[in-house]
């Protein structure tokens, strides 16, 4: 039995996630879409906090909300022309998309519901200290991630170069 506060918090987060997700894809203005995405990402970060992964939540906010969404906004500003009207969805497309999404929902939902282990309660977890996160990230033993970390850094470097190369003016 959990505290009422945490239950309420959960529901707030869940409703936020659902509502803002739906709004992200249904709104017809692209800039609004990006804004709703930002809210969704914040809600997700909150979810991570509620699950005691503070570091992850912080990363989520910093990288996703702070970095990626800003990128989106800038690119939207760069690519939209002054007289742009908000796009209108073709009904056929919408039906197809709806069908795919619902099918996804049904199949996965059925799979979820039919699995009993999904109803396990939240077990206790010792506090995840920053120290531990750091050691895990920088260690070379089993279950430690120095190599992927380095790989990611190389990837990011490549991405920066690639981005410059692709986007630069000819």
């Amino acid at each position, binding site marked *: 039995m959990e505290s009422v506060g945490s239950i309420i918090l959960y529901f707030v987060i869940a409703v936020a996630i659902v509502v803002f997700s739906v709004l992200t894809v249904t709104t017809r203005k692209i800039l609004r879409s990006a804004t709703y995405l930002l809210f*969704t990402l914040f809600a997700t970060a909150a979810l*991570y906090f509620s699950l005691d*992964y503070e570091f992850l939540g912080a990363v989520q906010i910093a990288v996703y909300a702070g970095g990626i969404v800003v990128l989106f906004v800038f690119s939207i500003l760069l690519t939209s022309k002054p007289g742009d009207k908000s796009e209108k969805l073709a009904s056929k497309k919408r039906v197809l998309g709806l069908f795919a999404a619902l099918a996804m929902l049904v199949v*996965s939902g059925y799979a979820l519901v039919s699995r009993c282990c999904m109803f396990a309660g939240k077990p206790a977890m010792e506090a995840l200290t920053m120290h531990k996160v750091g050691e895990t990230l920088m260690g070379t033993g089993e279950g430690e991630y120095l190599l992927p970390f380095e790989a990611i850094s190389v990837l990011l470097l490549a991405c920066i170069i690639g981005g410059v190369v692709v*986007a630069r003016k000819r």
Partner: protein
Amino acid sequence: MDITLMYYLIPSLIMFCCGVYGFITRKNMIAILISLELMLNAVDINFVVFNRFLFPGQLEGMFFTLFAIAIAAAETALAIAIIINIFRVAKNIDVRDLTKMKF
């Protein structure tokens, strides 16, 4: 009332389905990219949640998400670079007009 694993998975699933819907219906490539981010995020949630509920002593799920976020950032940056490039050439980022790769 217990907030079980299930309670976390359902919003994530809905989020994912929204991403699917958006990906298929939108014409603007940036909107498509946004839908993609939604889907990625939904998957991230799943990783974290499973990690937290099923293997609380380990950190694999969390770190996977961590790396996924990093890769998502890289991917977005590159994708946006491409989109801008396309826009420069085609003056347009409607995905339906970009069918040069067919046949």
